[in-house]
């Protein structure tokens, strides 16, 4: 993966495969603590303790007919390279919460990448799933929630090209992203 926004897209795809309907993504950048903290919280089927222990093993996957799963191992690698830490907490049936902490100033820390495009891709592909995204950068923050957008739309699909155009405009205005 080239940047953090692609990791986010990849990890959220996992949440969707796990049957999540509500996914909360939050990213905070802080110069003060020199940390970037990414958390992804979903309400999918969760993982058992055994699955959790094996989650970052590249040669373990829950998919049938597949021999490896690289999403989480790649994220873990990206985190550890900066001296950071990846923690995953989950219980079967109770969703999953992932927290990745990066050292912001580390030379191997990947750039954030195009967060807007990750959000647009998710909204286009999974109109039925609710995504919330919170971005904090020192004192500025940005919050976006597709559930609230949907309630404004009065039944028009959120992945309608006309709606996507407006959402793109909305995201473009945000300097934090």
């Amino acid at each position, binding site marked *: 993966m080239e940047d953090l926004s692609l990791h986010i897209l990849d990890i959220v795809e996992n949440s969707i495969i796990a049957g999540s309907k509500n996914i909360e993504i939050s990213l905070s950048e802080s110069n003060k603590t020199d940390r970037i903290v990414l958390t992804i919280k979903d309400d999918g089927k969760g993982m058992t303790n055994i699955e959790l222990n094996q989650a970052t093993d590249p040669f373990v996957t829950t998919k049938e007919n597949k021999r490896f799963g690289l999403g989480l191992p790649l994220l873990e690698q990206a985190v550890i390279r900066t001296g950071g830490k990846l923690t995953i907490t989950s219980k079967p049936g109770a969703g999953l919460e992932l927290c990745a902490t990066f050292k912001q100033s580390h030379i191997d820390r990947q750039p954030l990448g195009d967060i807007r495009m990750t959000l647009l891709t998710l909204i286009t592909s999974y109109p039925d799933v609710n995504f919330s995204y919170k971005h904090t950068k020192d004192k500025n923050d940005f919050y*976006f929630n597709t559930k*609230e957008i949907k309630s404004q739309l009065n039944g028009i699909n959120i992945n309608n090209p006309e709606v*996507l155009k407006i959402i793109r405009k909305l995201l473009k205005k945000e300097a934090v992203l």
Partner: protein
Amino acid sequence: MAKISIEDLKRIKERVKGTTNLREGKFRVKITIHMGTCGIASGARKVMNTLLDIIEKEGHTDIILTSSGCAGFCSREPMATIEIQDQAPVKYIDLDENKIKEIFASHVIDNTIVEKYALAHGSELSG
């Protein structure tokens, strides 16, 4: 919280009137971008972005864009599957922004499969 402005909402409603195809699940073309870890790492999001741009600019309302997981052919990612109603789906491989533009213009608009980028065309013969 970022919200859609009232003017924009009105505009959306105005434009969407009469083009409710997608909402009712009726569409002429379905394009699936394969977005497993392999696809994402090799540029599937760029392909998706290019398609979103074209659909937005040209104002197509009969095309649904979606994504799926790994298609089991990681070395040939990014991949896309194009399904035109009542026709067999076609899988395209090793995509980039330019190839998908070409495929869109030819396959989706003119209904001519771009064989040079397709994984396979037709089915294998038996016996």
